[in-house]
């Protein structure tokens, strides 16, 4: 094991390298390009024995990885924003085809207007494609999640999308542990698909399917996604045994007796931990909860984690115009029908399009959440008025 100072982008590439990826295809797009460049370098120098397919578009990237994965190859790619959107059609295909592709998406707001900066509007728009969705807080988690992602994807046969914040994680360098390759290989055995595309034994895959059969295929996907919660937890436990780190489906921080719990994802969580520590130092009962999985959504774990709180606030770095933040909707939906449903759940829209979410911003959230009459409609944080 060694420690390197790596950007989030390079951490993702090292994660792919440690996972013995066999085929990678990519199309450059900021702020993700560093991943592709590092992968290209790893392949060119022979450290990663993989086929690197230079592709003409993200659509082709996903198409070629689906085909490669059908043959039994372990496949990886990375993209961002408009590139992810261009893949949309094939994201459905990959999930329906049950190919365990792992993809890193570097969160960047969707145009128009043009922007390079961070929010999750690209990935939350792909929520319903049948992919497993993870959100990472720091560079180490990105690397570890790629490895965990392959384990999970190949066991439940669904593709995995690992999200990191553009700029905050993708371009920020910090110490990252590079695991011992042999240990990772013990954790992640070679991929052996139950059905493999093989010219020697030709079969048509995913041909025309009539209404008497289609629905069951979808139901099986839903079952696989449900199973993913248990498999992900086991993958996390086994990972902790080998590498000494655990992430969980979600990560409660000082929530045990918290009256107010703030929910966040991605790099905002790091800032939030500092703010919580300040308040705890003053003796206030306040905690934070990181949601790591958007799909499958860890409903039961969320309900347990929120049990002590009287009030909840959800900080969303994305917005579904016409309703509010996607995580806010998910949390409210998960609490529905339980005793906890009566808790006020404040929705906060923060950091859209890369605006910094500072400790001071978070103090505003805390004040608002604690107020006697928090707004029912989502609150736009730090908006010029």
């Amino acid at each position: 094991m060694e420690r390197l100072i790596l950007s989030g982008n390079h951490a993702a590439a090292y994660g792919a390298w440690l996972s013995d990826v066999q085929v990678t295809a990519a199309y450059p797009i900021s702020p993700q390009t560093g991943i592709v460049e590092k992968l290209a370098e790893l392949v060119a120098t022979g450290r990663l024995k993989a086929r690197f397919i230079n592709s003409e578009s993200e659509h082709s990237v996903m198409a070629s990885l689906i085909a490669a994965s059908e043959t039994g190859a372990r496949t990886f790619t990375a993209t961002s924003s408009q590139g992810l959107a261009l893949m949309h059609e094939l994201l459905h295909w990959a999930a329906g085809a049950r190919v365990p592709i792992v993809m890193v998406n570097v969160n960047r707001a969707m145009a128009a207007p043009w922007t390079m900066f961070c929010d999750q509007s690209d990935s939350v728009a792909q929520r319903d494609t049948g992919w497993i969705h993870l959100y990472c807080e720091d560079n180490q988690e990105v690397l570890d999640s790629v490895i965990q992602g392959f384990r999970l994807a190949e066991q439940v046969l669904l593709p995995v999308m690992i999200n990191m914040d553009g700029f905050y994680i993708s371009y920020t360098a910090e110490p990252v542990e590079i695991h011992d390759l042999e240990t990772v290989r013990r954790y992640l055995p070679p991929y052996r698909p139950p059905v493999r595309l093989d010219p020697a034994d030709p079969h048509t895959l995913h041909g025309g399917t009539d209404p008497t059969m289609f629905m069951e295929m979808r139901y099986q996907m839903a079952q696989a996604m449900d199973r993913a919660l248990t498999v992900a937890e086991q993958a996390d436990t086994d990972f902790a045994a080998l590498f000494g780190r655990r992430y969980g489906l979600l990560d409660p921080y000082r929530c045990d007796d918290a009256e107010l719990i703030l929910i966040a994802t991605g790099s905002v969580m790091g800032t939030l931990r500092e703010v919580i520590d300040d308040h705890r130092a003053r003796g206030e009962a306040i905690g934070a909860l990181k949601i790591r999985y958007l799909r499958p959504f860890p409903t039961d774990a969320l309900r347990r984690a929120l049990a002590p709180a009287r009030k909840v606030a959800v900080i969303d770095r994305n917005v579904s115009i016409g309703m509010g933040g996607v995580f806010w909707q998910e949390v409210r939906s998960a609490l529905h029908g339980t005793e906890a449903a009566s808790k006020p759940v404040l929705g906060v829209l923060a950091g859209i399009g890369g605006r910094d979410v500072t400790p001071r911003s978070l103090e505003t959230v805390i004040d608002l959440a604690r107020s006697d009459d928090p707004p029912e409609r989502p609150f736009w944080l730090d908006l010029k008025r």
Partner: protein
Amino acid sequence: MAEQQIVLRRLSDYPYKSIALGTTRANLTGRWRYWRPYYQTRRAPCDAHCPVGSPAIGFVQAASDGNWERAATMLREENPLAAVTARVCYRPCEAACHRRQYDAPIAIQAVERVAADQTVEVPAFPAADRPRSVAVVGSGPAGLTFAYYMAAFGHRVSLFEARRDLGGLLRYGIPPYRLPKVVLDREVERLLAAGIQIRSDCRLGRDVSLEELEAQYEAVFLAPGASRSLAIRVPGEDTGAVTPGLEFLRRVHEGGIRGLKGRVAVVGGGNTAIDAARTALRLGADAVILYRRSRNEMPAHVDEIDRAEAEGVQVETLVAPVELQRRGRTVTGLVIRRNELGAPGPDGRPVPVPLPGTEETWPFDLVISAIGEAVDADVAPGLTWGSAGLVVDEWGRTGRAEVWAAGDVVDMPRTVADAIGRAKRAALLLDARWRGLDPAVMLSRIQVAGGPAVSMAKYREALAGQPSSRAEDVVAYDQLNAEFFEPAAPRVALPQLPPGDGRHSFREVVGTLSAEAAASEAARCLSCGHCNGCDNCWIYCPDLCVSRESGHYHIDYDYCKGCTLCVAVCPRGAISTTEERKWRG
């Protein structure tokens, strides 16, 4: 195979992903096709522009494979004087080479020269069933070519040459620093091996008449050339003090002039003028070319003009001689007058307009006229003559039955390559007629790219009753896909004597490349219209219906949907499309 059936009654019967027992091969998606792509070799511009009908792209590609034997065989079949054209042709192939638009044209002539130096056996030509007899008049490039092909078809050929040695203009008109006599001798010897009876020192119109030839032979081929230098028409010229350019070159060749002193004026701007000036320089004189228009209008090849100047020839443009100055029969100088360029004349070139009062006297010790050569109509009375030579039809026939002609005697471009090409065409068409075939039909069958040149390879095919193996349309540059070309690479530099050597030596100026250098130059060829196995069609076919076997590709029309992506990604323009008939009802 027993029929299988999938039964999906319960959820547990389902596989985790949709998989069929069979494949999509039963679905013949090729039936959707509107455009049908097919591999079709087309004409490269180099081939299309060769007056000889020489397979430039063929021998260049064989050379790039290092297969010089194949290169030489292809070349020799189409060009019996390849070692000559490899030195004296003005390279229309290179001017047309599409690589010119990418970086610089292929040095095709340099490759041809290496190929022409190989000793190879050209496969026997299809022999005529009944040999006929033919008289060939003149042993320049046209006469030699015609005689060679007719002899090779098995006909009885008598070759009449007015002088002692064969070669005509090649021997007497082109100096050895451009075409060494040893090279010419070797070529002539090789051609004569086809079985040609030589009648040298026999001049038409003096020693034998056209009527006699017509009576003795079943056909006559006239190629006496154009050897009468035009007069420069200045007072004093009639005294014999002015030397005609071709006569000067011939006398030097025959050893009649071994050295020169002083200043030599050469009047004219064509290749004969350049050759006379460079020859005079080599004999020890200072040579000055006087041309009446500007440099842009000089008919000589630009490479020759540049080389002449580099060697020390002085080129004076926009001047014309108006009077010869002499003492007795000895020239002492020329009075010249300056010109300016006027409006374009009937031939499109600007007319030189004299500027009165600009007369000067320039001292000279010899004046050579090289303003052009005329045909001697007296050699064959009774034929139809135009302003620039004998009138012939598209096949090469004169107005008299069984009298054919080609070369400078005919009104056509006066180059060695054109002479060879027209003589070759006449030979193939006369042979075809003697075989009972229609020359008009044969001509359209063997033409290269619809142009004046014909192909011996195609004549072979036609005689063997084979269908034509190729299209004759010429690939345009924008039909190539430059996205897939190798990076730009410099054109090879030819070995050349230092220009200063021209003062003293008749040694050949341009040398021969090594076979390795020529092969690597040949490898720059973009392979216009010719598949060279790059695999693009095989790689890019989205339906995987291009297959590959020992360098050849095959399209599976059961599945080709006619997207024509293969056509778009072919860097060579070697895949064509046609509309499927079925859609036309």
